[in-house]
């Protein structure tokens, strides 16, 4: 891996490589360049996961023609696909080194920070939503109970905007969550459940289920589960799998035509959360 990156930097295939390097015993994201080629020896994989593609979009904002290389786990790859579709990055300017990913229902082994599910306390299990729950387990609760449980989770929110800030596919210049007439930045608690549901709706066709938002949430709100539900609705209604589909998402406001047709309505499952 290190030699490949070195060759790429040397022959100008890429201008900058985003990977990880250990600084003061912390694995931190690092930009490797041609000028400091010997640093590439220290390039490493990291158990902690940062959104390298977000750094890449910031670089591309400065210089749209910059050629970027980066380490890519599966989630990074999916995020990149979404960013290509939304014209935030140019696929011709990005090269990836694919590396092993976090374990999921699809993968047994991984080297990722999401490896160990967090231990959920008894009270949260009783009145809230268990972060390790699967979507189908959630259906066991009735509609009112589900709403109550979600409301318990939402009222914990300290409105740090961390879920939005860390999200690799959140790139809008103007955000609904900061719009005075929609949500507004000031008061705590945030408008419930509008704050979280506005974000959830905006995640439809965008969320690539990387789990960074949940990992960054100081209040352990099971955001991943919430957005999985939204993605499932998009899947059921439009047959669109975010991050792997090569077409524009159904809610795209770019371009002048609708790219996706909804599936026939009788197959659609639209039950609420």
């Amino acid at each position, binding site marked *: 891996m290190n030699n490949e990156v070195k060759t790429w930097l040397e022959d100008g295939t890429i201008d900058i490589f985003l990977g990880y390097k250990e600084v003061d015993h912390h694995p931190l994201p690092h930009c490797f360049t041609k000028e400091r080629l010997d640093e590439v020896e220290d390039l490493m994989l990291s158990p902690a996961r940062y959104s390298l593609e977000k750094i890449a979009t910031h670089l591309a904002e400065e210089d749209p023609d910059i050629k970027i290389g980066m380490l890519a786990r599966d989630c990074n790859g999916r995020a990149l696909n979404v960013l290509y579709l939304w014209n935030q990055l140019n696929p011709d300017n990005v090269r990836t080194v694919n590396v092993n990913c976090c374990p999921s229902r699809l993968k047994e082994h991984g080297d990722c920070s999401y490896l160990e599910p967090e231990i959920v306390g008894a009270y949260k299990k009783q009145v809230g939503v268990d972060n390790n729950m699967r979507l189908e387990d959630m259906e066991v609760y009735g509609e009112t109970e589900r709403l109550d449980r979600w409301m318990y989770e939402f009222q914990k929110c*300290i*409105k740090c905007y961390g879920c939005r800030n860390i999200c690799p596919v959140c790139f809008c210049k103007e955000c609904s969550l900061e719009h005075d007439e929609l949500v507004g930045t000031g008061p705590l608690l945030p408008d419930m459940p509008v704050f979280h549901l506005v974000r959830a709706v905006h995640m439809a066709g965008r969320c690539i289920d990387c789990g960074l938002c949940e990992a960054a949430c100081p209040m352990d709100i099971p955001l991943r589960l919430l957005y999985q539900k939204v993605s499932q609705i998009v899947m059921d209604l439009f047959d669109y799998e975010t991050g792997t589909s090569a077409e524009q998402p159904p809610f795209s406001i770019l371009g002048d035509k609708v790219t996706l047709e909804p599936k026939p309505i009788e197959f659609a499952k639209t039950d609420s959360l």
Partner: protein
Amino acid sequence: MKESEMECKLVPSVCSYCGTGCGILFEVINGKIVSTLPMKTHPVNEGKLCIKGWNLHEHVNSFMRLKQPLVKTFGRFIKTDWDEAIQLTADRFREIIEKHGPDSIGVLVSAKITNEENYLAQKFARAVIGTNNVDHCARL
């Protein structure tokens, strides 16, 4: 080949807003801090931040930031140089201390300056002015 090289650094630091001491990571592109990230492996915050921490870079780049001293003259703030500002402050301090005693002065230090500067400020209050009236916005 490019003529202008992109400079991109990720600088680990500690949040200056309160005494908790969350580990943060500044994303610096071409010499400008473009965003703040929580440090995932930091034992204090474990990849989480509050809203103030998330916006640490904002006050660095703020257009409201003072870049040179101002002196209030006839009710208006006038730009001046450091020598004049320091001389003026020292004169006024001496005047006040002589008239009302050193405890008529209090020193409020800031979370936006370094630990060492904070140390100097309290030393200044105790040793030079002669008061224990020192406080800090991050005293939790």
